[in-house]
């Protein structure tokens, strides 16, 4: 399983904080996004936002990063701390 998190404003937009995806279903961040949108068509406008950031296992990741079972993937908007 891959643990998928949605944080901050994105969590509110999707109405979801976390879900589990079977690893065989996805091979990269890009295909994970396609898989999520296939199951929730109204998420597309939010997940296709070019400003959206992605982290895999607590480090920033690009869309072509390969995923494996046990990974934690997080999607979130630009950060605004400090």
């Amino acid at each position, binding site marked *: 399983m891959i643990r998928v998190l949605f*944080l901050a404003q994105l969590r509110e937009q999707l109405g979801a904080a976390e879900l589990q995806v079977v690893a065989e279903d996805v091979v990269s961040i890009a295909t994970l996004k396609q898989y999520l949108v296939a199951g929730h068509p109204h998420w597309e406008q939010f997940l296709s936002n070019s400003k959206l950031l992605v982290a895999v296992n*607590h480090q920033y990741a690009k869309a072509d990063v390969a995923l494996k079972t046990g990974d934690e993937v997080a999607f*979130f908007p630009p950060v605004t*701390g*400090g």
Partner: protein
Amino acid sequence: MSFSIAVQTQDFDIGHEYAELVAGDTAVGAVVFFVGRVRDMNHARDVKSMSLEHYPGMTENILQNILDEAKARWELIAAHIVHRVGELQVGDQIVFVGVTSAHREHAFQAAEFLMDFLKTQAPFWKKELTTQGSVWVEENVKDVDASKRW
């Protein structure tokens, strides 16, 4: 403490942070501090309070990365980052960055670098409670530009 980070709901005390930062080190010639606070006005919105969310685990990783990068770029003796999360009121302290060095230009540059990268890399998000309701703070283009100069 030398080099350390903290993410916490509790407030921090500047006098205490300073004392810890310079404790026992007579090679320190320069100390630079930055404190970020919740101000009552942000982009013409009248702010009452704010809620600060973060991504536990990643936040600590990123702050540690930024600290390591600053250590590699400048001659630092000690550096400490504290960032608060949770509910904060106007006038509350949000973030502390303290750096010590033998030389003032190293201390100033490292402190600015730490803040610029913290602002654009560390996974914190602010939601302001304003007189017009609650608003997620938008990415600040000035911060993105500032982080590109390093």
